[in-house]
């Protein structure tokens, strides 16, 4: 069974006439690294939104771990909790997802919501700050960080949820060589640990560095 399964998914944003996704089908297996590629506006970000249940297909099905992700499934709190814990999404725009007063609080937000023990929260926060080279910035305000620092911070915040499937929208945008190498190294070890990565990207070098299988979405 595939971890992620899109079958014949169609979707249009309420404010627009055009289909953002028109009959998209693909699967992602557990432990795989996959890359959604395609021209601007082909629906990469939209696919990720559907996968985490922020929007729902107008036609077709989105399944995670065999379970249908739709409005009625999300009304079940147990399903939603499982989905939130197992799937993490780092948005394309890092600004929109940073809302806490300090970087450390930002990174610990998810674990705190999940009601983990204080030691566990601290351990995850410290580890994530270290992995994404944010230790120096831990008491800084997230909205005062540089673009690349924000992206690393946003990624660390999602990683702290310990998801099985990590979805990243343009993860290498705005990263310098060192941060980029750090990000690639992290993603490789994430996959090596048996977890699954799905990136939406234009960075073909990243795709080859991850050894990711590409899923092309046709533009129009």
């Amino acid at each position: 069974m595939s971890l992620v399964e899109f079958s014949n998914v169609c979707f249009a944003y309420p404010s627009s006439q055009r289909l953002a996704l028109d009959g998209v089908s693909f699967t992602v297996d557990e432990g795989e690294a996959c890359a959604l590629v395609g021209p601007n506006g082909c629906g990469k970000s939209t696919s990720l939104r559907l996968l985490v249940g922020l929007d729902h297909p107008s036609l077709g099905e989105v399944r995670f771990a065999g379970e249908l992700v739709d409005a009625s499934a999300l009304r079940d709190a147990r399903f939603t909790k499982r989905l939130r814990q197992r799937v993490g999404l780092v948005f394309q725009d890092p600004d929109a997802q940073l809302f806490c007063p300090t970087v450390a609080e930002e990174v610990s937000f998810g674990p705190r919501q999940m009601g983990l023990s204080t030691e566990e929260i601290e351990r995850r926060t410290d580890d994530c700050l270290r992995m994404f080279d944010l230790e120096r910035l831990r008491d800084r305000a997230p909205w005062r960080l540089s673009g690349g620092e924000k992206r690393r911070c946003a990624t660390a915040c999602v990683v702290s949820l310990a998801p099985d499937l990590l979805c990243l929208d343009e993860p290498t945008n705005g990263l310098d060589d060192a941060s980029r190498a750090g990000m690639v190294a992290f993603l490789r070890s994430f996959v090596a640990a048996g977890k699954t990565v799905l990136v939406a990207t234009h960075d073909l070098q990243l795709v080859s560095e991850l050894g990711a299988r590409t899923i092309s979405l046709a533009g129009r």
Partner: protein
Amino acid sequence: MRANQSEQESCGSQGQEPLPEWLSRGSSYEPSVDRDSFARRNVLALTRALAKLRSEVDPVGQRPWVDRALGVVTPALRLIGTLALVACVSMARNLAFAWLMLAVLLVLCAMRPAHRIAQIVGPAALAALLAFVVNVPAILLGQASAPVRMATKTFVTVGYVASLAQALGSDGMVAALRGLGLSPHIATVVDLALRDIVLLGEAATSLSEALSLRSVGTNKDKTSSAAGVMGVVFVRAQRLATARAEAMELRGYGLDWTGGRTRYRLRMADAAYVLALAAVVASFAYLEGAMV
């Protein structure tokens, strides 16, 4: 070789289409003096002031002792306390109570570092000024004291709310709202609404900076560009607020993970806070009664 090189540079990254001539041409343009930069400068100043409202929280060790002491009090209780205080100040028919609370506010402010004071007094003064101006016509209706009264009350209430927002930060605000038993969704909305005032300021700042960077030369239409800026600001704030709510949701916000809130136990700090609040309300009742 040189020519070749510069030709390569003027080609876009695709390497086929040369840049349009107006873009690749070196700029020899000298803007004429812009006499009407007044509007632009003021939009910038106003929006910078708004952006300052965004509350940053100092790490615990760097907080003044008032905030450290108050930090032990349950956030929800502090929210109730502040609301009660705001209600008393607004209801007060005479100014004695407002002056008393103003004195307390200023004492509390004085214990904070300068930039924190500015973040409380700034918005309060701005709001008070607005209240004063709005109430000037009341003088014509024979209410000579209305502008001063409204300005004082506004200064005091905004000052207390700003200092609470500053001390709690957005995270504490969420905790406070949820502690009041609001459903997670309502709590998010209220919390986001509170923070959007600030977001608006920030979005407006970056936009008006973009505007002032682009408006070289003399622009006759400053008001309409300023209006355009504010319009875009609202759209952006709305978009950002939605995106942020989604990001919070994805990170587990609003789901009851632990199964039931932990039961509330009265703590010493809370008891002390309630006593102080009772003293404030008593002084309100006394001062109001005394003047009748």
